[in-house]
C-alpha cells in the first residue's frame, strides 16, 4: 500500500459520498448522473439516478420498487468483477446484509478505500456472506455501534418464535419485519428450522418475497393474508411490515402474539414502544462484536464511520491507535432515536 497516504479523493458532500477522480457518488441522496448503489434499502437506493452500477440483484430490487424511476441505464455486475470509471478501479464484493448487497472497493493512485454500505458477519441463508477486503481506509456503518448491542444467534431467536407458536396454538403469530431482507431471512430460517406450514404475508411483503424466489432463494409455501377469514389464521405465522402492527389491519388477526424481528429488540424500552409481546433480536446489521472485529480484520489505518452511533465506534478505533472520524452523511438517520428508523434503515 502507498506511503504517505492522501485518501483525499473520496469525500462526503451534500449529495452523498463522492469520488472525485471517478465523478460518481456511492448511495447518493440526491439524483446523481452516475451512482454506485450498495444495496436495495430505500435510504441507500433512491430513485431518479441517471447511470446506476450495482449488482444484478440490487438493480432487480430497485426496479421492483421504483419501476422506470430506478435509473436511466444500468451496469449490472457480479461480485468480484472489476470496472474502471475514469481513473478509478471499482469492484463490488458481498456485504452479507441482504440479497445483492455489496461493499464498494475503490482503488486510485495506489490507495484502496472500501465503502461497506450496510453489512453483517453472521450467517444469512438468503445472501452471500461478508467478504473481508483489506484496505487503507474503511468506511463502516454504525447502526448498532454501542457495546450493549450483541445480537444472540438468530437461530435461537427463530426457535423462540417456534416455541411460542407451539405453546399458543389458539393464537396467531404476527411478526413485524422489514420488507426487504428481514422478511425473507426470517422465512428462510423458519424453513431451516423445519417449519413447513404456509406462511402468510401482508400485501407489502409479497412483491419482494416473489422477487427473492425468482432469484433462486427458496422460501417455501407463501400465501397472501388478503381475503382470508380471521379463523383461517389461528395458529399460523403471519408476516407484515413493522408499521402494520399498530395499524387497523392487524385487528383482523385472531388474538395475535405480536412479534418484532429487529436488532433494536435488544432494548426493552424499544420493544415496549413497538408493542412487541415477543421481541426477536434478529438483525441484518453488524452488532458491536462484528463491527469491532471487522475494523481489526480489514487492517485499515483509517476508519470513517457513517450513520448510527458513531461516537463509540470512533472511540474504539482510536483506542486501537487508528485514525478515526465520523462522516456526517446527510439523508441517513443520524440520531437513530426516532421510530422511523425501523422502517427507514431496515435493521
Amino acid at each position, binding site marked *: 500500500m502507498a506511503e504517505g497516504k492522501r485518501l483525499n479523493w473520496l469525500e462526503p458532500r451534500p449529495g452523498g459520498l463522492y469520488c472525485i477522480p471517478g465523478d460518481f457518488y456511492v448511495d447518493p441522496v440526491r439524483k446523481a448522473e452516475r451512482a454506485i448503489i450498495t444495496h436495495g434499502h430505500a435510504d441507500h437506493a433512491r430513485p431518479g439516478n441517471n447511470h446506476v452500477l450495482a449488482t444484478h440483484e440490487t438493480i432487480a430490487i430497485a426496479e421492483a420498487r421504483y419501476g422506470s424511476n430506478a435509473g436511466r441505464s444500468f451496469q449490472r455486475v457480479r461480485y468480484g468483477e472489476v470496472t474502471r470509471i475514469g481513473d478509478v478501479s471499482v469492484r463490488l464484493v458481498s456485504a452479507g446484509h441482504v440479497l445483492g448487497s455489496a461493499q464498494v472497493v475503490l482503488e486510485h493512485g495506489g490507495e484502496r478505500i472500501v465503502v461497506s454500505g450496510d453489512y453483517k458477519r453472521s450467517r444469512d441463508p438468503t445472501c452471500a456472506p461478508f467478504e473481508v477486503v483489506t484496505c487503507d481506509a474503511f468506511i463502516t456503518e454504525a447502526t448498532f455501534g*454501542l*457495546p*450493549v*448491542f*450483541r445480537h444472540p444467534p438468530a437461530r435461537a431467536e427463530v426457535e423462540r418464535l417456534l416455541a411460542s407458536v407451539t405453546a399458543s396454538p389458539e393464537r396467531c403469530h404476527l411478526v413485524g419485519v422489514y420488507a426487504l431482507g428481514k422478511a425473507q431471512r426470517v422465512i428462510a430460517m423458519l424453513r431451516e428450522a423445519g417449519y413447513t406450514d404456509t406462511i402468510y404475508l401482508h400485501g407489502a411483503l409479497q412483491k419482494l418475497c416473489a422477487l427473492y424466489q425468482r432469484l433462486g432463494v427458496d422460501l417455501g409455501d407463501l400465501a397472501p393474508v388478503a381475503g382470508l377469514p380471521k379463523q383461517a389464521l389461528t395458529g399460523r405465522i403471519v408476516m407484515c411490515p413493522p408499521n402494520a402492527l399498530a395499524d387497523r389491519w392487524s385487528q383482523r388477526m385472531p388474538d395475535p402474539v*405480536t412479534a418484532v424481528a429487529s436488532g433494536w429488540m*435488544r*432494548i*426493552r*424500552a*424499544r*420493544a*415496549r*414502544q413497538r*408493542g*412487541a*409481546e*415477543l*421481541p426477536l433480536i434478529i438483525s441484518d446489521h453488524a452488532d458491536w462484536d462484528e463491527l469491532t472485529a471487522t475494523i481489526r480484520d480489514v487492517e485499515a489505518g483509517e476508519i470513517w464511520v457513517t450513520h448510527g*452511533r458513531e*461516537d*463509540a465506534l470512533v*472511540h*474504539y478505533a482510536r*483506542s486501537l491507535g487508528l485514525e478515526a472520524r465520523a462522516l456526517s452523511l446527510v439523508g441517513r438517520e443520524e*440520531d437513530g*432515536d426516532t421510530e422511523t428508523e425501523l422502517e427507514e434503515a431496515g435493521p
Partner: protein
Amino acid sequence: MQAFAELLDRLSTAPGRNVRLDLIAAYLKSTPDPDRGYALASLAGDLRLRAARPSMIRELVADRTDPELFRLSYDYIGDLAETVSLLWPQDRTANATPRLSEIIGTLGAAKRGQVPDLVAGWLDRLDPTGRWALLKLITGGLRVGISGRLARTALTRLGDADLPAIEEVWHAVEPPYAALFDWLEGRAARPSLAEAMTFRPLMLAHPLEVGEQAHLELADFRAEWKWDGIRVQLVLRGGQGRLFSRTGDDISLAFPDLMQALAGDAVLDGELLVMRPDGIGSFNDLQQRLNRKTVSAKLQAEHPVGIRLYDILFDADRDCRDLPFTDRRQVLADWMARHASPRLDLSPLVPATDWERLAEVRADPPHPAIEGVMLKRADSPYQAGRPRGLWFKWKREPHRVDCVMMYAQRGHGRRSSLYSDFTFGAWRGDALVPVGKAYFGFTDAELKELDRFVRGNTVDRYGPVRAVEQSLVLEIAFDGVNRSRRHKSGVAMRFPRIARIRWDKPAAEADHVETLEWLIA
C-alpha cells in the same frame, strides 16, 4: 433465578392484564418453594432486601468496561440495570446460575462490605436477561407493570381462595409465604390473623369524573373534606399500637409522640396531620416529620402529629367492615368518646344538599390543608381496594402557571430514548430561574413534538442534560407550593405536570416567581 428472570422479561413486554396473570400463575405453579415465594414478594413489592445502591453497580461495571463506552451506552439506553446487564463481560467458565433463594439468603446474611463481590459473582454466572433481573431485584424497583394486587390475583389460580380472602391474610404472612402456599394448595388451614397486629387493606376512592354528578344522587352520599396529609391505618391492641401507611408499611417508629399517647383496642382509618392547639398544619409542616431516622424532641414539640379519623374497621374483636358507612361512623364516635385524646379527632361531615353549593365550598375550602371533597355512599361497606361506585374523591382544581422550558433530559423505561423530563423556569427580574420539573401530563404525540423541539433547539449540553433555547412556554398545573431551601427559586411545586404546550405564547409573557410565592401554604 433463570425462571424468575424469564418471567420478568416476559412480563416487561406482556400486553394486558390477562397475559400477565397467566405468566405469573404459570410461574407460581411450576416453581418450587422457597424461590416462588421470594419471587411473589418481589413482584408484590414486599421483599425487604438490603438494596444495592446504583453507585455500587456503577463501580462494579467501571472495573470491567471502558468508561467512555459505558457513558455512551448508559446515555443511550437510560436504564442502569439494562445497560450493565448488556455490557457485563460474559464469563463462559462460570458455574451454574444461582437460585433466587440463594441470592436472597446470602444477601440477607452478608455484611455491607461483602455485597459488591457477591453481586459481581452472580453477574458472572448469569446471562444478560438474568443479570438484568438480578439488578432490578437488588436495586429495588422491578417496574414490569405489576401491582401487588395483580400478583395476589394470580394466587387465586392456585386453589379455591378468592382475592378478598387472600388480601385479608396477606399482611399477616411473610416471604417466602410457606404458610400461605400451604393454605392455598390445601395442605393447611388459613394462617391466623388473631394475634398479629396486622395491616388490613384500605378502601380507596375513585376520582369523580367530569359530568359524573348527573348520574349520582347526592342524597345517597355523605361528604367529608379531603385532607392533605398521609392516609394511615392505626392498629391498637393490648396496650400496643402500630401505624401503617396506605401501602401497609409500618411507620410507627417515626411518630413516638403519637403512639405513646394512644390506647384502646381497634383498627382505625384516618389522615395523619400536624395538629397544633391553634389548628391543622400544612402538608409542608407534615413533611418535616417524614422520612426521618431519628425524631428530635424539638421536632416533636414543634410539629406534633395527630390523626383525623375517617372510619373504623374493628372495634375490639367486632368486625365492622360490613356495616353501612353511617353505622360505622356512629361506632367510631362511640369509640372516640371512650378513648378521648388530643391526638385524635373525627373528620367532620360537610353539609351536601346540592351539587352547586358543594362545588362552591370545594372551590373555597375553610383550610389550606383541604384538597377537595370526599363523597361516600351512606350505605357503603368498608371494602378493601378501590370498589366502583362507593367512594369518590373530588379534588380542587389545580393551580396553573405559565413557565418556560429550560432543560431537558432523556426519560427512563418506556421513554428512554426520548427527551421527556423537562425543567422549567419562571421570571425573576429579567432572568429565568428553575421552579420545577415535570415528566408527564402530555400525550405520546405531544411528547414527540417536545422531543423534536429539544433536539432542534439545544444550546448546550451537560452530560445527559440539554439546555434549550428559552422560548417554549409550558402551562404547568400543580396542587400547591411549598417553600424550599433546596431550589434556587425558593419554591417547590407539588405534583407539577404539563397541562398544555403553549407554542403560541411568547416566553416574555410567562409568569414570575412572585406568582408562585403568593401560593405558599
